[in-house]
């Protein structure tokens, strides 16, 4: 929390921002996470793979993509968060955030489980899955293979 100000101050009126984010073009991805699956997109015309997925291809300017599932990758880097932002302060665990490189050539961010941050090594192969947290938000999980 911020320090108690030494100087006089007054409260502003509260502003609450909650967005309804359109997912028409990425519904497969968000639905996939609920089933434990992580998908990327592949442009049907030029073959470019996108993660996070996007159906619009800036390389060839077409919008016809197919969905491909990502199953595993290799840890490229990782950290453990002791500092949690607003929206995450109700998570008791100090979650580990990692980036894994897949054979499809894209990199995925996820929460690393079943590993100690001090014992973790870059290059470790991980399985990529997803789950819905008790608060209803999805997340992606990496576990050592």
């Amino acid at each position, binding site marked *: *929390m*911020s*320090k108690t*100000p*030494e*100087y006089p*101050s007054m409260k*502003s009126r509260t*502003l609450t921002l909650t967005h309804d*984010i359109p997912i028409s073009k990425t519904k497969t991805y968000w639905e996939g996470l609920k089933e434990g699956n992580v998908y990327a997109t592949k442009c049907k015309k030029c073959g470019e793979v996108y*993660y*996070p997925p996007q159906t619009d291809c800036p390389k060839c300017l077409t919008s016809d993509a197919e969905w491909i599932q990502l199953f595993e990758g290799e840890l*490229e*880097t*990782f*950290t*453990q*968060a*002791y*500092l*949690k*932002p*607003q*929206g*995450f*302060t109700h*998570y008791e665990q100090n*979650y580990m*955030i990692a*980036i894994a490189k897949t054979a499809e050539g*894209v*990199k*995925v*961010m*996820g*929460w690393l489980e079943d590993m100690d*941050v*001090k014992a973790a*090594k*870059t290059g470790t192969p991980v399985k990529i899955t997803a789950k819905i947290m008790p608060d209803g*938000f*999805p*997340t*992606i999980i990496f576990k050592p293979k």
Partner: protein
Amino acid sequence: MKRVAVIGVGNSKFGVRSDATFPEIAFEAIKEALEDAGITQKDVELSVVGTVGSRLYEMYPAPLINEYTGFTLKGPIRVEAACATGSAAVFTAYNAIASGYVDTAIAIGVEKMCEVDTPTSTAVGGRGCYLGEFHMFGTSFACYYALFATAHMAKYGTTEEQLAKIAVKNHYYAARNPKAHFQREVTTETVLKSRVVCWPLKIYDCCPISDGAAAVILASEEKIKEFKAQDPVWLEAIGFGSDTGNLTRREDYTSLRSARMASETAYKMAKVEPEDIEVATVHDCFTIAEIMAYEDLGFCRKGEGGRLIDEGQTWIGGKIPINIDGGLKAKGHPLAATGCSMIYELTKQLRNEAGDRQVPLKRYIALAHNVGMIGQYCYVTILKR
């Protein structure tokens, strides 16, 4: 392109400024800059207001800043480039003069971050890539830079002790800078034993959340003659670079491509080499960022940033003194103020006005390296006197 020089600089006190609003803090920096240049608002044709502003109660702050500080009718052009906003403001003002559109301009960087609590500030900061990263993983800027620290340590053997030495150096100089957020020295041991924020980064590896403002007044060569400005500091070059929004789309996590791009452009434009630079301010929002900056700017070879700090080469008296104002790490990092504050410090250095922290100069060439986010933006500016 016209030649452009810095003719006035101002810098507010950085810190938790619960004594003042954002226009009041901007006023402090602008007043100092105008007095330093020996001119008034009437002499300035354009104001460029840089503020990230995402922690403010005010959503459109630039006109209010302009009005409060006497610049109504002189712009404002509002710019935002995350933590590189101040340099984006200088870049905009520079181009307006270099192109001949105006002859004088002021770049203002102001940020108020401490009016909201830390989890809110962390969430606002971490929302650099919401859908791909923040929404599911609760990323913060400390996490992002920690990902780079882990990768750099794994690839080059950089150590937590080397990171700590960056903090020790920058606190040492901040303790000698009355405008700095932190006014005290720390030891390597204190840094290493401090609480973990995002492993391997500890609280003393991180810059504080600060309030502050800085301002830079620029003028064309013709106008400098007209003003009879005594000691112009020439803005020889500004290079910019960028990179992907999603961190997962980066080539690697040990270097910032945008910094390499920006510095390559700036060195070429100023016709200088890294070895010619005598003093530099680099973007040390986290200690690992300073180590990467040494390498990306060519002050040492890739992977040898840790060795450069081990050898003490970036202290005054070393090969290339860096962040001798305390850096973001200890002077503080009021986002948009930082880029302008770097120019403030280097202008003082080039004029030999830095007092106890003065770097002995021969060639009078200085460099500022200002990163936005995790290299999504980067500006490298070269100054000469």
